């Protein structure tokens, strides 16, 4: 017990030192299962499949059943879920000010399929005490289209597999699982024998399925279930997003550029794409599972937008900009059906005063959104995100902080990039994150840096020096006497 506590303390220290270790593996010294020191007195598991990613909320009343105070709670996951997991956040449901909760995905036994989210409580809970945790996270690539191929005008159905019993590392006294669906059209779902007054689980009310309440279940108990529901919307998935934010002090500008690799993960077309049917459907059946438009609500003050793909400029876009909004609406070059890809680039400018401030002690501070992707009613998910903040040449002492959940950040580096008029290259802060969703698009990224006057004068001084050398060189060459003398 004691060794494990010491070890886990050392491990959490390690994780503090390197934020890149989003997932860590413990060695043979630690137990392969979390110690049974907690009991879930009451657990409500909400699985929301309303968007094209799954949002799960676990609200659990935990009780310390050991003799010592405890400050680590483990949440059970499968290895597959852990690879698709993102945006883990933990709150105290009763006390919003309690926190922060440390969150880390750990693998206690490398041979086992079980992985855990280790939640570090802000304060240890005494023996017998209870606390209500609200754990929320997202699962990407969650659905399978069923049927896998459909016609262009057909409705799309997706299937999602889950466990009707919330997988837990501890004994659970009472629990229920709610599945929130995008519509009431749910042709298939797993039925389970009920308990108490209810003859059969789940209870269906509108677009919600409720499994439970279940009585006491042992640790690790699962009950595989599947639900198949109508989802006649695109299943947009961004495999990679590269977002560049370039700060210019000379120009007083912050330039944004985003390069998307977008794929539709929905049902593939069973027949050839039919352009005539597509044009007709626009009139009599505007609801489609194809992706035909994306809306990017940018910050007010954004200007000079561009939208390109591998061919070049794409003219099917519209930009509404006024004092209240800056909305970029783009249509892909072709409607995007299941299995189809569309890589594209968008970019825009904004005045530096909207994002950049001078601090009291002479430094600069930049506050930009971490993500600014499309805002779609069906949502959008990002597998890999790379945010590059390109600071002016000579910027130093770079620090950052973000409200994106720390467990989603995989690495952060400061690099150098050379471009126009650069001599030593610009300081670039590169932050890599994974498994993000559009729910997190308003999260902030704050970057502070120092930028001395000497560094800011480097560009004109380089040009000045070169031109001056040219003048002196011209004069020297002009004075060389190359004539033949006749002595």
């Amino acid at each position, binding site marked *: 017990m004691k060794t494990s506590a010491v070890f886990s303390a050392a491990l959490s220290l390690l994780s503090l030192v390197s934020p890149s270790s989003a997932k860590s593996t413990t060695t043979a010294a630690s137990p392969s299962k979390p110690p049974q020191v907690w009991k879930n007195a009451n657990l409500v598991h909400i699985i929301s499949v309303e968007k094209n990613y799954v949002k799960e909320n676990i609200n659990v009343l935990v009780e310390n059943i050991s003799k010592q105070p405890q400050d680590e709670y483990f949440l059970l996951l499968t290895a597959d879920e852990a690879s698709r997991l993102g945006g883990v956040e933990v709150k105290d449901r009763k006390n919003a000010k309690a926190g922060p909760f440390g969150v880390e995905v750990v693998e206690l036994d490398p041979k086992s399929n079980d992985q855990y989210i280790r939640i570090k409580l802000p304060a240890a809970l005494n023996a017998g005490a209870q606390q209500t945790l609200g754990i929320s996270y997202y699962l990407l690539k969650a659905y399978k289209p069923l049927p896998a191929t459909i016609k262009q005008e057909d409705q799309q159905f997706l299937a999602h597999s889950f466990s009707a019993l919330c997988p837990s590392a501890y004994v659970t006294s009472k629990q229920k699982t709610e599945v929130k669906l995008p519509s009431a059209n749910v042709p298939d779902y797993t039925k389970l024998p009920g308990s108490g007054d209810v003859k059969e689980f789940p209870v269906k009310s509108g677009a919600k399925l409720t499994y439970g309440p279940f009585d006491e279940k042992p640790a690790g108990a699962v009950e595989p279930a599947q639900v198949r529901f109508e989802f006649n919307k695109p299943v947009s998935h961004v495999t990679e997003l590269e977002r560049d934010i*370039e700060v*210019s*002090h*000379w*120009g*007083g*500008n912050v*330039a944004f550029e985003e390069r998307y690799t977008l794929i539709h993960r929905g049902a593939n077309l069973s027949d050839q794409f039919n352009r005539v049917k597509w044009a007709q459907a626009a009139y009599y059946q505007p609801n489609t599972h194809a992706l035909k438009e994306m809306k990017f609500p940018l910050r007010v003050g954004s200007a*000079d937008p561009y939208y390109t793909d591998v061919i070049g400029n794409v003219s099917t876009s519209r930009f509404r900009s006024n004092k209240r909004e800056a909305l970029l609406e783009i249509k892909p070059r072709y409607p995007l059906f299941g299995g189809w890809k569309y890589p594209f680039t968008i970019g825009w*400018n904004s*005045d*530096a*005063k*909207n994002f*950049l*401030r*001078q*601090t*009291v002690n002479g430094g*600069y*501070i930049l*506050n930009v959104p971490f993500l600014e992707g499309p805002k779609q009613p069906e949502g959008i998910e990002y597998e890999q995100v790379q945010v590059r903040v390109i600071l002016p040449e000579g910027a130093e002492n770079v*620090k*950052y*902080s*973000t*409200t994106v959940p*720390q467990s989603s950040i995989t690495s952060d580096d400061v690099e150098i990039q050379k*471009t*126009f*008029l*650069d001599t030593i290259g610009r300081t670039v802060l590169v932050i890599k994150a994974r498994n993000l969703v559009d729910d997190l698009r308003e999260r*902030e990224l*704050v*970057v*502070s840096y120092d930028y001395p006057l000497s560094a800011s004068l480097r*560009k*004109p*001084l380089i*040009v*000045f*020096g070169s*031109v*001056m050398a040219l*003048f*002196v060189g*011209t*004069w020297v060459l*002009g004075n060389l006497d190359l004539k033949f003398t006749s002595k």
Partner: protein
Amino acid sequence: MDSALHEVWQAASGRPFVPTIGKDSHFLIGFSLLILGIGLSGAFVINRSLVNVPVLGLPASLALAFGVVYMFCAVGVYV
């Protein structure tokens, strides 16, 4: 999140970064400085004396230096 940086951001609310030359004037300033620099260079080329290196070369280099930087910004390459 480390809230310290967020507090720094809040504390700096009255000090947005405003550049010395605004975006609207980049082209005018850049173009004028470049013309001036090229003109002075031309004058130097006509009369290449040692005195003219500091008298014409120095202001020409300065004008070209800042002119180039602002012209870059004026055409949308925000350096």
